[in-house]
């Protein structure tokens, strides 16, 4: 093993994995190096949210977390939410609302919204803003992102199921 190499084990998108890493490698760098390229490197200093992943149910910045901190934790990335062919509910609504322009912020937005919906029953604007305040979008001005998220949140609140995968958002 190369000098300075350590290993870290955690559950990644439901699978137990062990990776070689270095003491100061960032979790984001490890994930991208291992092929989980959905999480983006944006500002690299914990401001923009493009690198957001979920650790033990909480949205965290992959760029401000050493990979070693993930030992024994459960990590989920955007790859666990949906794929291009089979997007998740939030992804469908974002696409349908025209909320995706350059798209760089979207994986992070989806992960923060996912953490919100899993953690809170109350999906009011006030609570939602608390959960979404660590994700920046430089294209849309947020209006369409909020519109899309509101549709998903209201559906959750109303208890109605998500529209089928063939919904208009999935057409591309």
């Amino acid at each position, binding site marked *: 093993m190369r000098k300075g190499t350590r290993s870290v084990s955690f559950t990644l998108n439901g699978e137990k994995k062990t990776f070689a890493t270095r003491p100061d490698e960032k979790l984001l760098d490890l994930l991208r190096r291992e092929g989980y390229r959905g999480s983006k490197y944006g500002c690299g200093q*914990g401001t923009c949210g493009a690198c957001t992943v979920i650790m033990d149910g909480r949205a965290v910045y992959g760029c*401000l977390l050493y990979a*070693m901190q993930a030992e024994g934790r459960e990590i989920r990335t955007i790859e666990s939410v949906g794929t291009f062919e089979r997007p998740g509910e939030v992804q469908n609504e974002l696409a349908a609302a025209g909320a995706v322009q350059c798209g760089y912020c979207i994986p992070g937005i989806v992960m923060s919204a996912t953490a919100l919906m899993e953690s809170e029953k109350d999906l009011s604007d006030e609570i939602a803003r608390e959960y979404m305040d660590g994700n920046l979008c430089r294209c849309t001005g947020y209006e369409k992102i909020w519109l899309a998220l509101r549709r998903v949140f209201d559906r959750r609140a109303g208890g109605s199921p998500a529209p089928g995968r063939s919904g208009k958002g999935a057409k591309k």
Partner: protein
Amino acid sequence: MKLREFVRPSTLKEARAVLRELGPKGMPLAGGTALHFMRGRTPVTAVDITRLGLSYIRREGDFFEIGAATPLADIQRRRGPRWAMHEICRRISTHQIRNVSTIGGNICRVFPWADLPVVLLAMNARMLVYTGGKKRAEVPADDFFASQPAGRFAGGDILAAVRIPVLKAHHGFGSVKASRTAAAFSLVTVAALLELEGGRIASARVAAGSAIPFPKRLRSVEAALAGREPSAETFRAAAALAAGDARWIGQEGMSADYVRELAEVSLTDALARAAEFARGRND
């Protein structure tokens, strides 16, 4: 800051022994968010203190005890009577940071813009420091924040918990943080604790931070409040005395005079919030 090694002790005792042995080559890591920005030429060993049972909030008699490794998000989410800590935690940084950044990390090494030292000074909090013995040493906020607390931990001691007095009826707390954007560092951050009695202010603790080199109590403001009626006029007059305790420093795009005005307005608002709280606001 470069990391040469990363260790995960499983008990507080072990963590202290490791940090003691490493000395300046060791660095306790809780959320770790600040480590990425700290400059230092020599690589350090990160000592992960998040697996030592230091993440909790519980009521212990007249105090709320918050474990040192409790993430800010947990403090922000908690609600309850006579509890006021959520207000400032909501205003610190972003959701993702609040999920990992801890109360201990925010106060063991005080950065000039830090909000929590100011709040804990006003609240008269007590820091419980693990020094190796059975009993944890209790350090009042006034002593803890008298100088950079990091020096206190050079010998391997570890902050274990923060005790915050449960606010009594007629006590009120208010904090105001002025920042350029929601997630930005404070331009000015202030906090006030008021004790009302028979329609008057019996005692006050007021503190400020950011735009001054280090967080501190504003004793002139406190003195000007004691015995007065809690009115907007009293608050404005007291806030105007802050310059006697703190020399405000101009920042990018802001003159020192502007910062002084910002601080005075923030103090007036914090005092009004504290009075409102004392009279029974409950959010």
